[in-house]
């Protein structure tokens, strides 16, 4: 008989023996599952990978289907970008934090905006009351953007901006700031998140309904392809979907389904798939189950490569490569015994690195309580640096390749992702699935099941439902100065009185016209931004023309 047949026999014998012993000394649990409740076997053997075809399933690094990584040398060539999401209060304060992080060795900037900015409201809008500067920096106009990047050479840094519904406006502001620095748009490097579908699904900072939102997105694709070629025009996100409670499989499935919707929208708008394909990027989460997370990243790369090549017929290999940023999972961190979070983040960062991420944000230990202090964020950065320089995992590409367990996990996740994608296709695509609440319901069900598992102690969270201690409330948390709101209002008043009101009105009128037609909106937005029209004014015009999104809420 073959080696495998013999192994099968031996495995059966071995299993019988083990299960007999288990009668007397049972295993720790009746059922072992991954972080996403998928069953985990006692041992994985070559039998689980009988049909393993290296070149078909993995491909050499940098080769189709990129399961092991999108570059041939990966971290041997260049380490992942250490990019800590930051921003709060005023542009001045954020500017100081950015300079601190760059000094400490961070290699890319990541901008967090406050909620009014993300939802297209100025700091003096009634709904902005109490929210200004709280979860990110308040940007009301180009003036604030100039302050934010004051003294930071935009031709030398790469900047990721977590902005979605008004992404076009913030991108225009960034381009305008660079121009003033004497840096032409074609030299700019960075990303805008610009993923409206996941806002509808999980994050909630939408403004306009799907159709005009898709138009804004494809306008950005088109504009950047010509004028800002090194810019990643979208970061198709699974992070928030996972934070909303989805499983690892759902995280990948719904993200890739959204990706499919964006590609289809761009194709419909007349763009060539290889024109925008290479600039699509992704954003994933990293939770605690190390091997499942690694498998998840590998499966995502494999599935997307096939989608772009086989479903959309892309010819440029760059279009086939799924490049992604990872953030460690905020929802996994506890308010109880916050130092434990440093360990959680380490494991999650390790998973992201073993999974081949292009850039990484590590959360700070006080994540469940407040925005991070300088000290906390430094430790988070050091976590990445220690993994990079001391652990050895970055010295070779895809070190877990060939593990019977990891390859089996990768295969299983791939299969289940494809099932979800088919289901969503049957519903008419991601936009329709969202309209019908299908994606949201799936996520919610997972979220509820998770919570119940934790409350029944079927899932252990150290410090929360096991190994608890009596603790005092933590001290020294970051507090956003409540006067930020007032300061922004004053700045706005000053701006409104000092700018050329005629130019503002002209450019806003031109924007309104363009919104009613089919011209690329980036151009009139740039003009309005340069005339110091505020974000609220620009989005106000678009709100009037496009309407506002009304969500479909499922239970």
């Amino acid at each position, binding site marked *: 008989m073959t080696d495998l047949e013999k192994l099968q026999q031996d495995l059966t014998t071995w299993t019988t023996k083990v299960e007999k012993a288990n009668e007397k000394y049972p295993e720790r649990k009746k059922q072992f599952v991954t972080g996403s409740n998928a069953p985990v076997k006692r041992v994985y053997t070559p039998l689980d990978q009988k049909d393993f075809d290296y070149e078909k399933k993995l491909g050499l690094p940098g080769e189709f289907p990129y399961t092991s990584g999108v570059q041939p040398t990966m971290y041997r060539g260049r380490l992942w970008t250490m990019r800590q999401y930051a921003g709060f209060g005023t542009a001045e304060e954020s500017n100081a934090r950015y300079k601190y992080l760059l000094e400490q060795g961070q290699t890319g900037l990541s901008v967090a905006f406050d*909620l*009014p900015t*993300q*939802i297209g*409201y100025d700091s003096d809008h*009634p*709904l*902005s*009351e*109490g*929210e200004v500067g*709280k*979860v990110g920096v308040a940007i009301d106009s180009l003036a604030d953007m100039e302050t934010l990047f004051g003294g930071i050479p935009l031709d030398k840094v790469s900047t990721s901006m977590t902005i979605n519904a008004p992404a076009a406006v913030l991108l225009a502001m960034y381009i305008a700031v660079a121009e003033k620095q004497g840096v032409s748009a074609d030299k700019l490097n960075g990303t805008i998140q610009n993923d409206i579908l996941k*806002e509808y699904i999980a*994050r*909630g*900072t*939408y403004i306009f309904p799907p159709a005009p939102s898709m138009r804004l997105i494809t306008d950005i694709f088109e504009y950047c392809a010509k004028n800002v070629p090194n810019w990643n025009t979208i970061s198709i996100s699974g992070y928030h979907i996972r*934070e*909303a*409670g989805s499983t690892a499989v759902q995280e990948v499935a719904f993200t890739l389904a959204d990706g499919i919707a964006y590609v289809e929208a761009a194709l419909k708008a007349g763009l060539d798939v290889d024109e925008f394909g290479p600039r699509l990027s992704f954003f994933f989460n990293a939770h605690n189950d190390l091997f499942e997370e690694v498998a998840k990243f590998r499966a995502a790369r494999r599935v997307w490569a096939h989608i772009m090549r086989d479903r959309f017929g892309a010819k440029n290999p760059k279009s086939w490569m799924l490049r992604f940023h990872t953030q460690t999972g905020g*929802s996994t961190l*506890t*308010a*109880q015994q916050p130092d434990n979070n440093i360990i959680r983040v380490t494991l999650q960062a390790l998973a992201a690195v073993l999974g081949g991420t292009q850039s990484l944000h590590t959360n700070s230990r006080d994540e*469940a*309580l*407040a*925005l991070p202090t300088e000290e906390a964020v430094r430790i988070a950065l050091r976590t990445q640096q220690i993994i990079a320089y001391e652990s050895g995992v970055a010295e070779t590409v895809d070190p877990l390749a060939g593990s019977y367990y990891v390859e089996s996990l990768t295969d299983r996740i791939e299969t289940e992702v494809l099932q979800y994608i088919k289901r969503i296709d049957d519903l008419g695509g991601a936009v329709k699935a969202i309209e019908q609440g299908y994606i949201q319901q799936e996520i*919610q069900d997972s*979220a*509820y099941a998770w*919570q119940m598992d*934790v*409350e029944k102690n079927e899932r252990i*969270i150290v410090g*929360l*439902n096991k190994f608890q201690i009596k603790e005092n*409330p*933590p001290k020294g*948390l970051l*507090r*956003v100065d*409540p006067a930020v709101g007032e300061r922004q209002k004053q700045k706005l008043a000053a701006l409104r009185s000092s700018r050329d009101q005629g130019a503002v009105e002209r450019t806003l009128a031109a924007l309104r016209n363009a919104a009613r037609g089919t011209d690329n909106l980036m151009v009139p937005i740039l003009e309005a931004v340069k005339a110091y029209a505020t974000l609220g004014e620009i989005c106000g015009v678009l709100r009037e023309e496009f309407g506002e999104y009304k*969500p479909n*809420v499922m*239970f």
Partner: protein
Amino acid sequence: MERKIRVLIAKPGLDGHDRGAKVIARALRDAGMEVIYTGLRQTPEQIVSAAIQEDVDVIGLSILSGAHNHLFPRVVELLKQSGAENVLVFGGGVIPEEDIPFLKSKGIAEVFGPGTPTSKTIEFIRANLKRPLN
């Protein structure tokens, strides 16, 4: 017929994270309560108006954006102005412990931070209703 505990779960302000609000809504439903969910981006005025029309026993305010010190007291103030004093108001989300005494002084009965089991919230509601069950 019987008396049910009616709860309004609201998301004040611009915060779009509704995982917790939806989980608690479901948990309360499974505990036999009638739950009205307002959806996102609610002003204190909208929340209080809904609470009065729905004649709820409890309001749960969920917020993760840090704007709680401004928005929560506003809700309680409006409730008082409208004469709806018998409503139990609790909060949840990302709310630093050091803010809790202030919130309590403004009429928030309790704040349930990250990691609170839903059973704890349910027990609290049952034990602290301002209008008797019978």
